[in-house]
Structures are given as structure tokens and as C-alpha cells.
């Protein structure tokens, strides 16, 4: 029991620290390392929720592929040592106030919705389906999504190439 509490709170500190690190560390490569730490620590949190496949999936997809992609991109554009730049202080104060307000409103919503009766957010999905769910049947549309994303990325790439080439020529 005590080990669970210690595990949860230490993971909370690591997760929040890494998340704050992504936006506040002075150099860009540190932000990528923070992102990696965040992904790994949230994976450990999923393990405590008995979701080992999800933890593994997140580690492979985000921890290995996404972080290395960002790292390679930064290296390619020579921005690994890019310094931290924030918006001006007035905007920071205004954003903080807005975020605080948003946080308070969300806490009030949680309190109203979950204080007396706890309901499942999955009810709207499963109420008309059968009791047994075949994972492969539900995962099938993922192929369509991936196909759609690849087609969109190709179109975007063609569009951006034709848009950016004239600008470079203008500079010359």
C-alpha cells in the first residue's frame, strides 16, 4: 500500500517536472530529453493501471520514433542549442490568469460531475454494442486512418514544395 503511494507520487513529480521542463529548459536538446522522460514516466503510470500493452505501444511509437525524429530534425537544422524564447511578460501574465481560470472551472466541473455519482465515459460507445468486443474488429478503421494521413501528407508535401520554392528564388 505504502509502496503504491510512493510510486504514484514519485511518478507524478517526474511527469509534471518533465512537462514543465519541455517548455522551460534553456536549450532545445534538453526539451527533447524532457519529452522522452515524460513519455517513459507516463508509460510507467500506465503499467500501474494494468495497461502494459499501451505502455509498450507508447514507448515504441513516441519514445523511440517521435523523439528520435525530433532530435534528427533539430540536428538537421542546427537548432539543438537553440535558446529558450518566451513571449513578452504581459502575455505570460495574461496566459497564466487564463489558465488559472480554466483550471478552476475544470475543478468545479469535476466536483459537480463526479462528486455524487461516477459514470463511465465509455457508456455512449458500448451501450449499443455487444458485451464481448473483438479488438481486431475495432482496430480495422486504423488502416483507413493511416492511409488517409499518408495521402494528406503527400498532398501537403507537394503543396508546400510548390509554395516555398518561389520564396527561396525571390531571396536569391
Amino acid at each position: 500500500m505504502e509502496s503504491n503511494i510512493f510510486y504514484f507520487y514519485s511518478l507524478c513529480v517526474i511527469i509534471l517536472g518533465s512537462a514543465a521542463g519541455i517548455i522551460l529548459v534553456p536549450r532545445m536538446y534538453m526539451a527533447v530529453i524532457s519529452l522522452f522522460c515524460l513519455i517513459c514516466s507516463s508509460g510507467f503510470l500506465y503499467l500501474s493501471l494494468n495497461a502494459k500493452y499501451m505502455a509498450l505501444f507508447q514507448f515504441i511509437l513516441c519514445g523511440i520514433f517521435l523523439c528520435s525524429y525530433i532530435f534528427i530534425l533539430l540536428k538537421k537544422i542546427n537548432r539543438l542549442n537553440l535558446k529558450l524564447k518566451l513571449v513578452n511578460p504581459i502575455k505570460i501574465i495574461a496566459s497564466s490568469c487564463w489558465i488559472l481560470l480554466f483550471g478552476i472551472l475544470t475543478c468545479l466541473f469535476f466536483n459537480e460531475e463526479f462528486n455524487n455519482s461516477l459514470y463511465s465515459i465509455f457508456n455512449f460507445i458500448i451501450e449499443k454494442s455487444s458485451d464481448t468486443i473483438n479488438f481486431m474488429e475495432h482496430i480495422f478503421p486504423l488502416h483507413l486512418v493511416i492511409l488517409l494521413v499518408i495521402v494528406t501528407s503527400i498532398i501537403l508535401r507537394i503543396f508546400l514544395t510548390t509554395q516555398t520554392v518561389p520564396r527561396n528564388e525571390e531571396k536569391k
Partner: protein
Amino acid sequence: MDFMLNIGLMHYLILSLLLFLIGLAGVLISRNMLRTVMSMFIITISVVLNFMVFGHYCDNTMENANIISVFVLTISVVQTIIALVILYKIYQANEYLDAEKIKDKEN
């Protein structure tokens, strides 16, 4: 004191909310667009955490949570990579990734 010691749904929801707010703060206060993209990914992780927690505490099988989380995470990673490709193209055109400089240039 009991609330602190008995780890339950509310603890995870508070963690998820804090993570979401940090991500939102990153989107709002960062001038570097790469950091903005990474902050958006923090928001996604908080959303996925929410799904997993609701799956664990409200749904016995965890299947729905896993399915939705896999979808959300995959789409989010692909969207992040597309955003990074767009940023790379912007960098090639302008040679900087500062949102305010790009906005000034557009004006």
C-alpha cells in the same frame, strides 16, 4: 490526509488536469514553434492518461480504453510529424522558427 493516502480516480484526474494546463501554458507562452508542437503533444498525453484512468476505474475490461487510446495516440503522433514537416519547410523558407518574427514578416 485520507485523500492524500488513498490513491483513486480523482488523483489521476488532477494529474491529468495539471499536465493539460502545463501543455496549454506551453502553447501560449512559447515563441519557438517546435516547443509549441511538443506542448501540444503534452496535451495529448494528458488526454490518453484520462482515457486509461477511466478505463481502469469505470470499465472492467480496459478494452475500450485501449482501443480509444491507440487511436488517439497514433493520430496525434502522425499529426505531430506532419506539423514538424511543415515547420521544416517554414524553416527552409525563412531560416527561423520564431512565431512572432514569422507573423511580423507576414504583416
